[in-house]
């Protein structure tokens, strides 16, 4: 059976490429870690892949705005290829620094099918500092997002200093109307965080943690699904494991929402492009 090819960007201070490639492999894809300059030089061709992942990290040290220089470099050298990739109905996911790059490229939110305009921003946390914590996320079941199909809630870690989603109110309203808001920060029951810290760790408008483009094929989020690739990643796993053990049940170490999210992407390609 034909394999789904995923491209995970590396280089220039990106740093989640290994675990992102790992989850794609676990989800049944062939994952390739590719240096940005290999795409720029043409040594590697974007068209040979089905899923493009902008991973987490500190591209160019996040100087002059997180993801800004990365977006600029890609726009300058492979901007056309990126737009073709989107036109070919392939998938793009941007995580943390990758999400920041997507909004600076304009691939998100992609309103009015304009994939070059910067109309939203992911900026400095209200708490004024970098923060690593796990968050509860409520997924929007009406969202067209390919990656969150069948997911209603998820716990993932956030690890950022610039994760506050902002945009003009009318843009936010449009995103809500279009169901482009995919993930919102929530309490453990799934109710919106209502900007309450630390449930909403960065002060994002409307508790927005992740959005997609109108097609649902381009997805960006601040939390790290690839960091939930094993049951033991979850901060409460030792308690949950005890509870199950007392009931005589056991857990499959690799059945996590994190892997399921990437599985959705891989399945989508299988169903639509093969």
């Amino acid at each position, binding site marked *: 059976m034909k394999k789904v090819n995923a491209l995970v960007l590396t*280089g*220039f*201070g990106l*740093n*989640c490429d*290994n*675990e992102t490639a*790992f989850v794609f492999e676990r989800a049944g894809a062939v994952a390739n870690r590719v*240096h940005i*300059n*290999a795409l720029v*030089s043409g040594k590697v061709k974007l068209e040979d892949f089905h899923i493009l992942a902008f991973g*987490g*990290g*500190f591209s*160019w*040290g*996040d*100087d*002059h*705005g997180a993801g*800004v*220089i990365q977006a*600029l*470099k890609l726009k*300058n050298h492979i901007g056309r290829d990126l737009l073709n990739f989107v036109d070919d109905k392939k998938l793009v996911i941007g995580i943390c620094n990758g999400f920041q790059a997507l909004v*600076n490229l304009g691939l998100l939110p992609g309103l009015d099918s304009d994939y070059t305009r*910067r109309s*939203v*921003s992911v*900026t*400095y946390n*209200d*708490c*004024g*500092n*970098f*923060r*690593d*914590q*796990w968050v509860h996320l409520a997924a929007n079941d009406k969202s067209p997002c390919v990656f969150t199909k069948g997911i209603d809630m998820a716990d993932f870690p956030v*690890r950022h200093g610039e994760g506050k989603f*902002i945009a003009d109110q009318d843009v936010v309203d449009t995103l809500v109307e279009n169901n482009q808001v995919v993930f919102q920060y929530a309490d453990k029951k799934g109710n919106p965080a209502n900007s309450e810290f630390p449930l909403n760790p960065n*002060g994002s408008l409307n508790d927005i943690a992740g959005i997609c483009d109108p097609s649902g094929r381009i997805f960006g989020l601040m939390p*790290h699904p690839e*960091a939930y*690739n*094993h*049951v*033991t*990643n979850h901060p*409460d796993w*030792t*308690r949950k*494991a*005890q*509870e199950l*053990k*007392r009931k005589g049940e056991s857990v499959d*170490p690799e059945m996590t929402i994190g892997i399921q999210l990437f599985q959705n992407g891989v399945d989508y390609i299988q169903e639509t492009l093969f």
Partner: protein
Amino acid sequence: MISCIEIALKKELRDADASSLIKKADSYFGIDIEHARSVNIVTIESDLDQGQLEKIKNEILTNPVTQVSSLSPLDIDFDWCIWIGYRPGVKDNPGATAVEAIKDHLGKNFGPDEGVYTSKRYCLKGKDLTREDAEKMASELLSNSIIQQFKVFAIDDWDKEIGADVKPAKVILDHVPCFEVVSIDSDEQLAKISDERNLALNTRDIPVIREYFLAPNVLASRKEVGLEKPTDVELEYISQARSDHCNHNTFQGIFKYKDASTGEIVIENSLFNTYIKQPTLQLKEQKDWVVSVLWDNAGVGTFDAENNYVVTGETHNSPSNMEAYGGAITGIVGVYRDPMGTGLGSKLFMGSFGYCVGNIHYNGPLKPPLHPRRLLDGVIEGVKDGGNKSGVPTTFGQTLFNPGYMGKSLVFVTALGIMPSQVKGEPSHEKKTSPGELIIMSGGRVGKDGIHGVTASSESYSENTPAGHVQIGDPYTQKKMHDFLLICRDEGLIPFITDNGGGGLSSSVGESAMISNGCEVWLDKVPLKYEGLDMWEIWISESQERMTISVKPENLDRFMELSDEHEVESTVIGKYTDSGKLHIKYKDETCAYVDMDLLDKGFPSWQFDAVWTPPEMRGLTEPVISTPSDFNSLLLSMLERPNVCSKEWIMRQYDHEVQGGSVIKPLVGVNHNIPSDAAVTRPVLGSPKGLAFSQSLLPWYSKIDAYHMMTCTIDEAVRRLISVGGNFDHIGGLDNFCWPNIQFDEKKNPDGKFKAAQLVRACRALKEACENYEIPLLSGKDSMYVDGHLEGAFGERIKISALETVQFSATSVIDNVMKCISMEPKMAGDLVYVLGTTANELGASEFYEMFHRTGLNVPQVDFDRNKVLYKALQSAIDDELVASCHAVSRGGLGVHLPYILMGGGLGLELDLSAAPLDESCGNLSDEILLFSESAGRFVVTVSKENQAEFEQRLGSMAYGCIGTVTGAHDHLKISGLNKTALVDLSAQQLDNAFNKAFGDMI
């Protein structure tokens, strides 16, 4: 042409940077700022037309959604404006990335006279603000004169056209590089020159150096290359190689150890050989998991069949005391190069920190270079940027307060890497240089950085002299190099690699050339940050983010191809030979030509007098404190103490799960806010195995006897590992000594002999503990001068010495991470056990410290008893009989039972009289039960179903079931010796106390 671009957040957006200034100005100095905005300034020196500048401003530097910008000063109202910029030569990371972006975006190159420089200004509104306020904030909050400069403007003297009038902070040396010949007619003369040039040559070394250079055969061979007397380059090389940093003269020194109570004298010929090397090599024979120790940049142990792990630790104390942020970021980024330079190079997978600082609320007369509060802020931020931007999780860390650290605070940084055990069929932990191979320097460029360490700080500043002695690490450049070198390793392009740290090329090339037995170095090829460095400066500069690599000529093209793709600068700077000579040239001129074996020319060992006066003879006694009547308040006050309370805000700033392998996090429990015993990580995501890591610091016990400080510290580190599921048969150790000066001097260091004796005793204890617990020391470092001379109220300087401190780190490999456990009780109805014996051991405890007492009964470790217990507990955890486990340490049960309760969120009903008790050293009391810090203890919870099996495993060992976990309430209920109720506190009460000191910090 010089242009300035100003960028600011739109005024309706929250300016986090300015907000934090407002907050700190108020809480630190009581200065009331009504409103503040920060402005980023990018100064470009380059010939660009208006169009290009607009393009840079709009398309690179401005986010249209969030920012406004201008090519002239932004019109932002203020009463006072503070401008902060770097001094020339200080690493300006955003400036460097801006150059990269402009090059790429405009397709233009930057010449040597062109550059980009970043700075910042703060626009402050506040009717009561004065120039003094602004200058205080500028100098004590926003800048450090060592690396930065500031200007303060009142609105009246602000020129809207010129603004802050920012000039490029570029280095102009205007100096023709040269080397000098040094005359060595007499020992006195060389000693004088050594002082003048900050060579810090040891007086005992000087005759040896002269003897070498005056030897006829040496003179003859030097003549052939046009040299006669030694050059400054050669003397700097010797100075570096013989320095305590590179040569560990203290641990290699000869100690005359006298016990004042018996008069007995013992000669210690080398603490390193006797107490570290010998036992470690012996253990290496017994333990096949020990792969490589005692010679490389880090130790190597087996992780699984395909992979080895690498571990090392460093301190970066002196620089951090002068420039906390720069020192700390340079420290963490620097220690990360050690695993990269171990064997053929390893991939970093975790780091940790340890901070020992003075009282952050200190308001006495002493003036440390940086106030402890500011120092801690800077250190935390430095490790944050260095660690996070390296993409390496910071999974463990401790912060400790003690007045002794105001003289010199300690910044410990630890690094772990993972590498395939074989590369191209060859063992990856072996490496060598061979004649004909090329010497390559990769990464950063060379400037006047770190030359002679902090001794250079006495240089006077002019506008363009580099402030290079304190550096700012550049994790971005290093991360690019890290990724690049791993690919080179896997392609088999690297026969040898090491990092450039202390001593720069002098150490990295000098030491690696000993393997091939010679080298020829072309200093004029070394890429420089700016022109005008003398040869000796290029040779010993400690500019960061550099590795030295040996590459075979036939592999050079491929190596350079990969280097270009990753945009890492790599340069051939010489070649390895077998000439037996260290041969350094600049252009065609030889500036150094010495024998590779020069350093074996019988340089004398350092010598120390050590006199041990036992605590009783020093007049220490147990304090007289009657049993308190209000244990509830006492317990809450203990939880509020700085060394006990929550420091969650520090760990939250550190990415502790990047790379996706987090298993046991640094913060655990229902509210994710209780410090974990140890961290567990999966460095190989496809494997069920995990690496457990713990650290301990118990310097307080050195007040009584550094011997017991050492044994207790190691015992705690081991128990922390066992508590998460660690394997007693695989424990790797890492010793980081930080000691005050031990060289006796009647005036300058009158208690030097005692401190020397403390060091000898600590080393003896290290050996005893490592042999008993079978811990090979995979790596270790020492920092020997943790003293400070602080100015007091009357212009006097008072010497403050830190406690004799050892941070001990321990590693273990866990076969199946699904068996790991955490410290918090999991289920109501479970039984609570105390394992290990509680004795009257309050000496130097947190409890005594609360009453400003020291005492005498310092905790002592019973290795034979503990070993048996730890193995039994390990087997019980391995067979999943244990629901939670926690090592009892600083503060005793009275502190750790609250941790456990807050972690579980369930009630605890406990009877401490049921715990194993030892009355041999005096009658027990309730405060001893609660606050004794006896070693070897755990608190464990077990389900009723597993009770019988668990107790059978422990057999006749010291354990007691002290009560149960309950869901009926969330109170900690403790009864004492005669079953009387001592403590009844709710989780909320405990949590309030635990978070009182730092709970509001983010």
